[in-house]
């Protein structure tokens, strides 16, 4: 099927064909080639805080268990009994040194090896336990706590795949006094009816806020005046110091920070308990130290996206989880800063609840409208040509990074080129 597709036609410089969103055949291929063929974000090390911790995740549609074994090594195991395919782990997370299938009692170590089979004599001499472990993701690597996996032997090392974009992840992490992020604060989960790539089209879209988020801006204007929240988008963002970057492998950045003035804290809309927690912090550590620390409470002013499924937005980690070709879950993991004052981390929770409730709700409605509009077969194209007319639109530095205006659609063009590259490749996936 791959050979039948004319990619030059489907993804052009300025437009993309609707079928890559609507045709379920693409979805089936994406769930193996992209989710698993590329470095795919699985979870954060702090979600597996001690020896024998585990967490269920998905890599595309594959159910996985990420484990930390007795030797502190991380594994990504298929949650799929080698015998008759039943999942062997039902709890979303916890601690376990082994997993037993409820169907026939086969038991596996948390590193994947098959330990025991009930009534093994029934297999005579033909039971080869060594080949009947839980299948494993062959390559699992971490970058500063973020665990990724791939089944593709041809992927470069994770650090090279993340490339220059990782320096912006460093900025997000280094806001923590101890330079570590902690992901143990639950998640907000939203689903929308639509293809997962619709969320990607939006991920570094500096063009939409004044329109898509007009309800939030109007509310902010009524309640908080002109200098709070996302009001730096209320005029043409291309005339602001904000910008976008595109990176190799489809990663992208909408950098709002340069347009947000000297203090992030002074821009964030007040949250439940803001005054009482600030007062307590000032009383404890003094005004200067308190307001310095409070700079860590809001997001970093970045939309930073690692293709195919990890996004940094606000003070949260957003994971794109495709459920079907027309259904997608967006999971927003709350994060805390290791070494930060408890008041700062508590305020991070209340700030984290702001955008999903008052911003993402509008995005998800728009995503569903895109999905409905895409059902018209004769209207074939989704346009992404904003900024393309500029003579320097395709100029990149020696590391393959482009820097463009904040409302430019370069990040969308860029991830779709990475999408095309893997989709038109012959990819051989390997499991252990």
């Amino acid at each position, binding site marked *: 099927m791959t050979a039948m597709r004319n990619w030059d036609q489907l993804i052009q410089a300025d437009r993309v064909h609707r079928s890559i969103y609507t045709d379920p055949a693409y979805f089936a291929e994406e769930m193996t080639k992209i989710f698993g063929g590329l470095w795919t974000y699985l979870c954060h090390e702090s979600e597996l805080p001690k020896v024998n911790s585990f967490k269920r995740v998905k890599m595309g549609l594959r159910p996985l268990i990420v484990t930390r074994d007795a030797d502190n090594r991380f594994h990504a195991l298929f949650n799929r009994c080698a015998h008759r395919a039943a999942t062997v782990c039902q709890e979303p997370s916890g601690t376990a040194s082994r997993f037993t299938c409820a169907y026939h009692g086969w038991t596996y170590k948390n590193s994947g090896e098959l330990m025991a089979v009930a009534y093994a004599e029934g297999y005579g001499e033909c039971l080869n336990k060594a080949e009947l472990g839980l299948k494993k993701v062959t390559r699992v690597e971490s970058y500063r706590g973020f665990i990724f996996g791939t089944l593709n032997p041809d992927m470069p090392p994770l650090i090279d795949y993340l490339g220059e974009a990782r320096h912006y992840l460093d900025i997000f992490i280094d806001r923590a006094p101890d330079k570590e992020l902690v992901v143990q604060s639950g998640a907000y989960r939203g689903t929308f009816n639509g293809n997962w790539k619709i969320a990607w089209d939006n991920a570094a879209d500096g063009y939409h806020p004044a329109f898509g988020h007009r*309800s939030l801006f109007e509310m902010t204007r009524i309640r908080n005046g002109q200098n709070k929240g996302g009001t730096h988008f209320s005029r043409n963002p291309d005339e602001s110091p904000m910008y976008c970057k595109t990176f190799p492998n489809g990663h992208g950045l909408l950098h709002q920070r340069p347009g947000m003035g000297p203090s992030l804290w002074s821009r964030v809309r007040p949250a*439940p308990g*803001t005054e009482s927690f600030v007062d307590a912090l000032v009383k404890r550590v003094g005004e200067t130290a308190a307001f310095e620390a409070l700079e860590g409470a809001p997001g970093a002013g970045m939309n930073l996206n690692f293709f195919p499924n990890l996004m940094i937005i606000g003070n949260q980690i957003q994971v794109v989880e495709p459920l079907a070709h027309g259904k997608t879950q967006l999971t927003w993991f709350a994060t805390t800063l290791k070494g930060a004052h408890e008041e700062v981390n508590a305020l991070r929770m209340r700030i984290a609840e702001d955008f999903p409730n008052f911003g993402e709700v*509008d995005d998800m409605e728009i995503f569903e409208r895109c999905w409905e509009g895409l059902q018209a077969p004769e209207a074939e194209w989704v346009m992404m040509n904003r900024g393309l007319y500029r003579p320097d639109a395709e100029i990149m530095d020696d590391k393959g990074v482009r820097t463009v205006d904040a409302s430019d659609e370069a990040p969308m063009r860029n991830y779709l080129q990475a999408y095309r590259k893997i989709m038109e490749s012959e990819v051989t996936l390997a499991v252990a």
Partner: protein
Amino acid sequence: MLSLRERSPQPSHYVTPEYYDALIAWRDAASNLGAATDIGLNAECAALLHYEARLIDARRFAEWLDLLSEECVYWVPTDRLTDPRLAVNVAFDDRRRLEDRLIRLDTGYAHNQLPDRRMQHFISNVEAWEDADGKNRRVKANEQVFEHRTGKHLIHYIAQLDYWLTLVGDQWKIKVKRVMLIDSLDGLDTPTLL
């Protein structure tokens, strides 16, 4: 009564560590409640909940908000037993954020409210208890909420409701409304107001 837009946001001084501690203690005290035997009290509290549901369904948001005490919280947890200081919630609104929420819904630009989103809240299994001092009540109930726009699929939420009512003057006001969705750990189709 002031419209929502006429109310200026007040500083949030009451959401303190002590307030969070009290919320958690109140939540956990429900785990071994016995039968609610005061039939009159059950009926009185059910009437309040039915009235509240009708105000929400009719989008009479300012009147709904006036059922809540000044130092109120609308709390929709993601997980059952977490400390809100350490965990994100579907919603954890103090009075100021609740006003924000309701004002946004009626800006005319909240896309998923358009055109003509309708809600119906169904309340059942109402049980109520009153403290010995007669100044605080607890009400537990079940709730189903349906939301719909013509041509779109019907959205359905199921939740346990837990209310902390407090006597303000001679009126019972809602101090805490906790809405524990049955599927709070799965992906939600964004609720308007539960």
